[in-house]
């Protein structure tokens, strides 16, 4: 991170992924989180999860396990009706939503949904402007976020004209510019060619954020996240070191997950 900060223009500036003031608070703390769809189907059942500062956690699970529903709770887009949910000690509730949304950087699966402004630069500026950043401060944030993802030279291009990997990077920059405490990525490797997939992994490792990554891509989880949480049927089924979890073939099979052909976790 310090390395990145130096690269981004000096040691004086604050890090892109802020570390918060109170190290005692976990970045994410949730307990007893239950959610049912309007038709009564239970999507999440008494979920408990704690992510400490600097941790990178993969959220694994089959389709329909409730992973996306859970991520939408983290910044209050879906209000938590039952259970406790706090980001860096701040409860996710109506009066705190603005601050919560600044602290939780949600990167959606399809960058096409995230990038809607006419140019990359305006899209990256969108979040910070909403959080009240203006003037040179805003320019600096946009510059650093684009630099961090290596997209500076594309700042004035239309997102539609970028490749899939570039769009993913810009989507990440739009969130980095908001100075998040927790980065939440929904299927970051989906639809990426192998090189773009690897480059994104290197970028994320370099940024080293506190991160929750929803994915079906098990090797990606192993590469990026030392810890994995397996969600199925709206419940946390396992919470272990990723290598250990991926070695448990019976557990994976029971929850419709499997490693690619020929892949052995070390």
């Amino acid at each position, binding site marked *: 991170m310090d390395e990145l900060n130096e690269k981004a223009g000096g040691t004086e500036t604050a890090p892109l992924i802020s570390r918060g003031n109170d190290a005692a608070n976990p970045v994410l703390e949730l307990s007893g989180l239950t959610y049912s769809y309007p038709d009564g189907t239970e999507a999440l059942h008494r979920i408990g999860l704690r992510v400490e500062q600097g941790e990178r956690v993969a959220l694994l699970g089959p389709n329909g396990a409730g992973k996306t529903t859970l991520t939408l709770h983290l910044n209050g*887009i879906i209000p938590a009706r039952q259970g406790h949910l706090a980001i860096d000690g701040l409860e996710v509730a109506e009066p705190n939503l603005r601050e919560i949304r600044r602290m939780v950087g949600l990167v959606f699966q399809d960058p096409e949904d995230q990038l*809607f*402004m*006419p140019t990359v630069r305006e899209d990256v500026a*969108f979040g910070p402007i909403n959080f009240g950043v203006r003037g040179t401060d805003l320019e600096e944030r946009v510059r650093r976020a684009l630099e961090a993802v290596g997209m500076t030279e594309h700042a004035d*291009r*239309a997102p539609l*004209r970028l490749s899939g990997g570039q769009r993913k990077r810009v989507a990440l920059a739009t969130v980095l510019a908001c100075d998040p405490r927790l980065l939440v990525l929904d299927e970051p490797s989906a639809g990426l060619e192998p090189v773009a997939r690897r480059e994104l992994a290197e970028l994320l490792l370099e940024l080293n954020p506190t991160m929750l990554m929803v994915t079906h891509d098990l090797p990606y989880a192993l590469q990026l996240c030392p810890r994995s949480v397996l969600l199925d049927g709206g419940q946390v089924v396992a919470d272990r070191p990723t290598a250990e979890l991926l070695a448990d073939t019976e557990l994976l099979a029971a929850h419709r997950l499997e490693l690619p052909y020929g892949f052995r976790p070390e």
Partner: protein
Amino acid sequence: MSAGDGGVLHLPGDSALHRLAPQIKLLAAFGVVLCVVATPRAAFWAFGGFALLLGALAAVARIPPGWLARRLLIELPFVVLALVLPFALGGERTEVAGLALSVPGLLAAWNILAKGTLGLFCSLTLAATTSPRELLLGLQRLRTPTTLIMISSLMLRYVGVVIGEAGRMRLARISRGDSPRFLWQANATARGVGTLFLRCYERGERVHLAMVARGWSGELPEPNEPRQVTRGQEVRNWLLGLSPAATSAVIAGVAVWTS
């Protein structure tokens, strides 16, 4: 097409007209069109004047005549309607090349043709010299409600995505043997349009969520652009920019006065 780099109607360039602030161009174009519409149809010389004025502007903007002519073809349905009028309308008749044509019909046809063509000519000149993005910026500076600007801006952004999606759906249909050539084969196409509508709706929902996640609360962020011109330059730009509209007003005024 996307808002960032124009489309079929924008002709990138560096002429004085291209450089003029979009809000000035918008007002000027609106003024010219109003004057054209307000000019009495029998004041033939006035339409010649408008045509000369617009021709001069197109020359200044270095828009190739062929480029303009191809885009003027969109007027064809109206031309067809105009051509029917001299035959369809009654009243006094006159003989042209052996055909007895209605005089009020001829005048009505001329009215549609002249005003339609000049109005379109003016709009095309505006579109050629102003990118969609600049047009929105101009509307914003003219205090158009932010919600309308936001909707237009999202429409510009996503029209390319939707066209791409429609294209992929069409390819998938054709790949499965669909070849709609006649009206009674339009079923699959119609269903495709319905599906596309639903997909757009769903995408709208997802885009909205992504915006809310970045703290959006219903306001369009103001662009953070530094002022690039001095007060004096700005006044000069406005005067110069609105001069076509002023010239049109003089032409229309004289035409109304003398008819």
